[in-house]
């Protein structure tokens, strides 16, 4: 059975990069009625993140893998698409991925609308979840878990739920994450949307 902390050794990082910040203000603010979850970023060192990415593909979401360096994905893939109008990006990454992408997203006029911390244990204990998002979406996540869905499947439920809300609170960029304890891994789910 795969160890939850299946992080591959070594790292693969970015090469050539593109400008992140859209040149014109008009591209940043989008009518909330036209939000679409277009991209999902996942840390390919994590089994759970890879699985969720697989599950995203059939619903038409472009999945983008990262490892230790999100800059390649941001500058080469996401930034041009944000500039072209892509306005909702989701992800399941490590704290490092969350940190870099939310700050790069901030520069591009995107704000966090969901941030989930999912603490996973190597000893088989149930994962623990803390979700910062609008109350209705948080309840939806809890209900999905209570119905027996895995937590990644529950995220699959709430991502489109959040995107379909006519308005959604934005979550302030948080503090940096404390290091995981031994035999624990925290993954971070997140959704970036235009400034409210």
């Amino acid at each position: 059975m795969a160890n939850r902390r299946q992080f591959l050794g070594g790292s693969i990082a970015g090469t050539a990069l593109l400008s992140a910040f859209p040149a014109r203000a008009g591209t940043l603010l989008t009518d909330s009625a036209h939000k679409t979850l277009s991209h999902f970023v996942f840390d390919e060192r994590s089994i759970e993140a890879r699985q969720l990415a697989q599950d995203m593909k059939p619903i038409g979401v472009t999945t983008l893998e990262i490892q230790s360096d999100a800059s390649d994905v941001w500058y080469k893939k996401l930034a041009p698409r944000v500039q072209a109008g892509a306005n909702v990006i989701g992800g399941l990454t490590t704290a490092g991925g969350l940190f870099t992408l939310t700050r790069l997203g901030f520069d591009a006029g995107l704000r966090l609308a969901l941030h989930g911390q999912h603490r996973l244990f190597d000893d088989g204990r149930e994962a623990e979840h803390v979700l910062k998002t609008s109350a209705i979406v948080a309840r939806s996540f809890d209900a999905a878990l209570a119905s027996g869905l895995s937590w990644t499947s529950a995220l699959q439920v709430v991502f489109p739920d959040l995107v379909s809300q006519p308005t959604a609170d934005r979550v302030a960029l948080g503090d940096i994450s404390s290091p995981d304890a031994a035999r624990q891994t925290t993954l971070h789910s997140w959704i970036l949307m235009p400034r409210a």
Partner: protein
Amino acid sequence: MTILPPNVSAEQFASALRAFEAAVGKDWVLTSETDIAGYRDPWSMVRDQPGELLPSAAVAPATVEEVQAVVRVANQFKVPLYAVSTGKNYSYGGAAPNVRGSVIVDLKRMKRILELNGDRNFALVEPGVTYFDLYQEIQSRGLKLMIDNPDPAWGSPSGNSLERGVGYTMGPYRDHASSSCGLEVVLASGEIMRTGMGALPAAETWQEYKHGFGPDPAGLFFQGNFGIVTKIGVRLMPLPEHYRTGKITVPKRADLGGLIKTVNYLADLFMVGEPVFSSALHPLMKNPEFFAEATRPGEFNDERLNAMAAAANLPFYQVELQFYGSDATTLANWEYAKDLAKRNIPGCSALDGVSYTMPLTREQIMDKNTPYGESAIRRYAAVATPNLTTFDFIGRHVESPDDYVHLHYGMFTIVPRSAESVFQVQRAWVDLVHEANATLVTEQTPRPSVLTLPLQWHQTCFFMWAGFPLTVSERPMSEALADMLERVLTVNAKNGWGEYRSEPLLQDMVAAHYNFNNHALRRFNEALKDAVDPNGILSPGRGGIWPKAFRSLRGKVGS
């Protein structure tokens, strides 16, 4: 929670915000909690405390004219501003202002690369252009140019140079302040000024001769608060054809003298890039006897230390050298370096490293192994490939707290390029840690020891790094830690070792040590500041320079 600028009422601030909106557009005046959160220092030692250095708002102008308008509004309402280009230098406070309640002037929207010249090797950029942007533009135009980026690279040539940041390639380019050439600045009056040849309107040498005619005030804008820089010239290294490395090792502690002498000669002839000093003896620190000797207060026993290194069949110190040029010239320079080292230190050894055609492939960049074993070179940065791998450590479990500095104030202390000085620093810091019974982490080592070695990011001096491990849960910084910080700065200053840079929370403490002749430098800077910025609205307190209107805040930043 609404934060106001000092001495500005809520009503006045509301009027100021409306005036800022008129200047830059409503969309670009940011006041919501989620917007302000983007400018918080995630590594702040006083996060969530009453003194946390939070802004009251942010404004994001897109043009020089808008910057001028913002400055005029600030003067009208006496609102302090704090200009940032990308605001991502989290080692030094990020976008956090010296004065709580300042309005951030976020220059990220000013993203034009105004000129990029592949024959005369320079760029002229706006403050929002990042190292990634410049790198990509060079690639897309197929120019044979190399940036010199810091690590991580999401900052800007403008911001990093103005903070006197450093990089990892050849000496003249590693010093980003020195390799800048020509500024355009919006002054506190709202006027635009250009330095160097930029003051001669038809000159085409603005990015080629930085001094112009007469006194050159450009230095005032580096780590200063005399203006908002809206354009900066950057000298760029031509892309070499080949990259080569080699390592020189020396068997005994005292051999560091010959090693540094060799490196200084090569570096000052511009034959080598960043020399990377290290020691192979780190595994011996797990040996209690070696640890005791390596961290002994009072006096080190070199004979005993050398014997233990010899018994382990390990060299005491080593330096990795980097060569840029053609295949032939890099090989010739490496051969010369080996010969010179042998003459200076007969007992040294020389080991070939990598030899690559430029540009390197991703695999070549990622491969930490070399023919001589693991390398301490930041190869990404050495071959000017910007990346953000540095942040992969966030949130990761670490086996030993000593291996991981989570939050820190890092002191990069300026030290002469000599073994004598390095040994003095080792001695001073080891003794200090013993006297204070406290922690101090140093570069490559969890505590000061004979293995504490310099960084040669700057061409002509060493930096020696020391810091404090702090975890998120240990904030705010304790009094004991604050006391230790002051003790380190005091010991350093007593020995003539100052900081090259600091975060807002600590700039006053650092600046106070640059006090020759009753703080003549500070008095000069503040006289100038009061003259050119009478309302004191441009980044008050930055660099320890306080305008009259805010001088009472000196020493109180963060409290």
